[in-house]
């Protein structure tokens, strides 16, 4: 098992090296560029040249890449050029990371807490009203564009009804002490429970918007997987033993049905950043997604490089975690 983990971590380094090169080339081949983004259309050639020299963009691209790799190996991704000029890109990443983790955590919590039980009961009562209704519900969840859902939720529940805050992570009039950057946890640590509560309220709408796709996917995979397991001979054996419904559900059905669901959850966590770009933008949530969108618009290469490489690393790590979970659940994987 340990050898397996080490091998996968080494693979991850390979993935990141290749990705960094592709990313570097790809970003610089985009139309526009840092200088145009900052100076605008009407910049003089002189001022453009001066700024290109300032960022080192006048050098051949392989020289730029060599320097980039050299600095990254020392943990330096360079300063932001246009989002927060001068601020270290890695610092921006770490400042915004907690917001996105918090949002992703609650979104996945909603998706899993809703998707797995609903998927299970839909399968057990196949073709019932509950089954049909939840299948349609999940179809809507997957078909509706995330940004549209986000706007819709914001418009109805924040603007029209006024039940929940419109944007941000914390209301302006709440004076909260920052400890970890996770606003809900901070409030609990400092015993400023009103700050925690306020942060939670800010999380509701963005979490729901972000949860829509993972929920739909987890629900459908759970339902399909439970249906498969129900047909298995060992479920009939379990029934022939006269076991209680509770034991059959947990030990025999769900434990087996969770195998494909685990993979799905992993993939969905990996893909969460894509949804976060849209959701965080709509709710001005101040996380990585918003930073990614901003730095993209302003061609902030250092920030983009940190964010995308980090996203790739997270993706690989989550999938490693999924494989480990798989071995925990399925003994057949362990002995292979």
């Amino acid at each position, binding site marked *: 098992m340990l050898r397996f983990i080490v091998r996968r971590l080494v693979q991850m380094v390979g993935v990141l090296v290749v990705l960094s090169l592709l990313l570097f080339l790809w970003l610089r081949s985009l139309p526009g560029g840092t200088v145009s983004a900052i100076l605008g259309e009407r910049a003089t050639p002189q001022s453009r040249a001066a700024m290109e020299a300032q960022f080192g963009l006048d050098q051949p691209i392989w020289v730029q890449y060599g320097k980039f790799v050299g600095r990254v190996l020392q943990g330096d991704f360079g300063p932001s050029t246009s989002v927060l000029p001068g601020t270290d890109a890695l610092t921006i990443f770490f400042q915004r990371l907690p917001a996105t983790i918090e949002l992703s955590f609650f979104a996945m919590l909603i998706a899993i807490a809703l998707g797995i039980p609903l998927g299970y009961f839909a399968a057990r009562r196949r073709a019932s009203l509950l089954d049909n209704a939840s299948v349609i519900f999940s179809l809507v969840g997957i078909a509706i564009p995330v940004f549209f859902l986000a706007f819709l939720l914001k418009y109805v529940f924040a603007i029209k009804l006024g039940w929940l805050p419109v944007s941000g992570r914390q209301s302006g009039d709440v004076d909260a002490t920052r400890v970890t950057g996770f606003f809900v946890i901070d409030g609990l640590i400092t015993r400023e429970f009103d700050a925690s509560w306020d942060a939670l309220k800010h999380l509701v709408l963005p979490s729901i918007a972000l949860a829509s796709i993972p929920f739909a996917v987890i629900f459908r995979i759970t339902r399909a997987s439970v249906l498969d397991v129900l047909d298995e001979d*060992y479920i*009939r054996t379990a029934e022939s033993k*006269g076991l209680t419904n509770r034991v059959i559900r947990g030990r025999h059905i769900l434990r087996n049905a969770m195998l494909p669901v685990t993979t799905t959850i992993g993939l969905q966590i990996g893909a969460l950043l894509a949804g976060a770009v849209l959701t965080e933008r709509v709710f001005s949530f101040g996380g990585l997604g918003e930073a990614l969108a901003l730095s993209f618009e302003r061609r902030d290469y250092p920030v983009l490089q940190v964010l995308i490489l980090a996203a790739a690393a997270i993706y690989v790590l989550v999938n490693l975690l999924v494989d480990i979970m798989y071995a925990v659940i399925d003994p057949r994987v362990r002995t292979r």
Partner: protein
Amino acid sequence: MSNATASSTTDPGTDTTNVADRDKARRWREGGSEPLLRVRDLRVTFQRQGAEPFEAVQGVSFDVHPGQTVGLVGESGCGKSVTSLAIMGLLPERGNKVSGTVDYEGTNLLELSDQQMRDKRGKDIAMVFQDPLSSLNPVIPIGLQVTEVLERHRGMSRKAATPVARELLDRVGIPDPDRRLRDYPHQLSGGMRQRALIAIALACQPRLLIADEPTTALDVTIQAQILALLKELVEETGTALVMITHDLGVVAGLCDEVNVLYGGRIVERGDRHDLFAQPRHPYTNGLLASIPRMDAPRGQRLVPIPGSVSDNLPWTSACAFAPRCSQPIEVCTQKMPELEEHHQRALRCFNPVEVSR
């Protein structure tokens, strides 16, 4: 933990009910005892939307006495497995209709609630299935799959049940039971898996065991071992056994009484010795003739039964077997033959095989 308790609960031979069953079994052989299981006019109809209802079991009746081994024999699709699932209450909840009675010690199992049936299954009536690999849960250890039955029906803690499970595995001939308790199904050989399934079924010392083609998925050499084990266990414990099989060879070595099923109905019933010595129904006769025999002259061909189940006529207006029969007469395609009983035998045929030899 006391060793004495553990072994007394696991050694079914010393259990009082089973001693009583063994006595009853002897009495049954001498003739006259109340049947443990009395199946009367059992019918199972599958209904699917947009399709004709299909009556898989069409009024099957038979008795199983304490300690008796009864065979249900027939080819695929004759309704033998459906019969066993109906007795166990394991048919899918929807899409089928079951009628008739299944009396187990005076209780009609078909009228019990789901909860009452759950209390009986695994405790009073247990079942061994065909494919031991797919019939065991792949992601939990063998030990738990044995102890969970004991926890459920004996109210044992898992800790208390573990030595019992160990004894059971040992009893069914699984070597190194301590290790096997922690093993998962894929780590066991086919024969060992079937032994484990038998151990699970016998864990609570049921009075009735239903074995649905328990040897079909196994190598021939292992088949013989498993049959010998089943025979030994039921004789030792006095458990009644319903053996479901397509293999007359299995029946020959194991069953006291044999029911031959065709198209969802019993076509012939008899004591094993009588039935094998003098098959009366052409179907039974055909099944026997299609078995390879060691003592047959060299070069003699096997005689297959022509056609397949899909050639059946509906029982309501004919003998279902008539299209495949070796000796049909006119009446066979005009009305259904009734099951007629005489001298411990029952036969459903207008033109039975002549008694000769």
